[in-house]
């Protein structure tokens, strides 16, 4: 008896349109659409794609409660057993939408799987909730992605116990699963110690989280000609926090124009950061983001220019993967606009 599966794709792969259609609400069509055809063939008699949900990436990311309900209702309506989404490759919002769709279905007890490029932000956000198969960064890799997704999906559906990410070919989800080993823990510990003493390779049963190193850049030769940008994790945002950057476990960052602004004053700027007493930053946001002093230095010719945009997020329990991703994106923005140096302030 083939498992009944719903396939989730975005407006582009659903043939409705590109960026301009990213705001369409979710709709469902019987049978397969887009990459679903390839998947259906590969799944063969093990599973049948009974319907396809097509939803605009912006709509999904912006209306998660509604889209989540739509997905679960569709799964119920079609009496489905599982949901497969994407693959999204390196499309950021499509990756987040696919991850979210699987997350919503998994929360309602359904088996789920999707596929995307390992650097896609959707991975960090949703890998704990669903299996994700690594794909190339562009749709050119569709031919390679679908067979891997179909094979793993069939294995999960069959209820077979999965091994580690390395063995089965999915992205490590960082989820700890209990198991009963051959030996008692004490034996495993002493055996591991012997390998460590002899310098032989061993696999720790739990990896402590650690950070990597970056090689330092050379100094800026002439500051009086340099454009300097301000970036902060202290959460300084325009009044009202327009991009709703969360007080902890932030999911986004903001970039705000400060041309003509010579001082951050209370009532115009505030802090969105939930990790410290906000009194002092709200009284004078310069205490976190020194715009006033840098404007003086700019006027006195000590620095070439204060870059017109400052970037900000809330560094409070932020997922490391997200912070890394944003750092790369902001860095690229500044480099493309020939900024020579950045002052990073944090609280």
């Amino acid at each position, binding site marked *: 008896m083939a498992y009944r599966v719903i396939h989730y794709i975005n407006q582009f792969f659903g043939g409705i349109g590109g960026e301009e259609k990213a705001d369409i609400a979710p709709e469902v069509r019987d049978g397969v659409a887009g990459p679903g055809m390839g998947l259906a063939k590969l799944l063969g008699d093990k599973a049948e794609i009974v319907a396809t949900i097509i939803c605009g990436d912006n709509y999904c990311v912006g209306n998660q409660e509604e889209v989540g309900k739509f997905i679960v209702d569709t799964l119920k309506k079609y009496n489905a057993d599982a949901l497969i989404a994407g693959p999204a490759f390196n499309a950021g919002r499509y990756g987040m939408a696919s991850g979210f769709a699987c997350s919503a279905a998994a929360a309602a007890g359904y088996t789920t799987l999707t596929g995307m490029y390992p650097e896609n932000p959707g991975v960090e956000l949703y890998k704990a909730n669903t299996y994700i198969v690594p794909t190339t960064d562009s749709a050119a890799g569709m031919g390679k992605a679908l067979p891997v997704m179909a094979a793993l999906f069939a294995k999960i559906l069959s209820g077979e116990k999965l091994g580690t990410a390395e063995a089965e070919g999915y992205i490590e989800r960082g989820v700890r699963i209990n198991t009963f080993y051959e030996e008692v823990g004490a034996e495993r510990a002493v055996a591991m110690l012997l390998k460590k003493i002899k310098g032989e390779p061993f696999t720790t049963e739990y990896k402590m989280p650690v950070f990597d*190193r970056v090689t330092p850049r050379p100094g*800026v*030769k002439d500051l009086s000609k340099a454009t300097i940008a301000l970036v902060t994790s202290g959460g300084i945002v325009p009044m009202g926090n327009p991009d709703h950057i969360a007080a902890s476990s932030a999911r986004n960052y903001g970039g705000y124009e400060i041309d003509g602004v010579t001082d951050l004053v209370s009532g115009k700027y505030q802090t969105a950061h939930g990790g410290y*007493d906000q009194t002092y*930053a709200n*009284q004078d946001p310069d205490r976190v983001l020194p715009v006033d*002093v840098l404007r003086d230095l700019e006027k006195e010719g000590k620095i070439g220019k204060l870059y017109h945009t400052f970037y900000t997020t809330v560094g409070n329990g932020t997922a490391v993967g997200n912070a890394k991703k944003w750092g790369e994106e902001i860095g690229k923005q500044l480099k493309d606009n020939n900024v020579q140096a950045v*002052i990073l302030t*944090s609280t």
Partner: protein
Amino acid sequence: MASIVPISQSVGANRIIPTVAIPHPLGNPTLDEKGEKALRRKLVEKALDALHTDVKEQTVF
């Protein structure tokens, strides 16, 4: 520019300027406005000096 140097070191920052306190890294509410701006200027100038300097490894200025 951060108030807890060991944390900046552990995450791999290469040029680190220790600042005043977490709730107000570049200020101090107990100073008057002029005093606080002077403090902030001193810290930012230290940051510019650090940007100007070549460093081979993580350095606290």
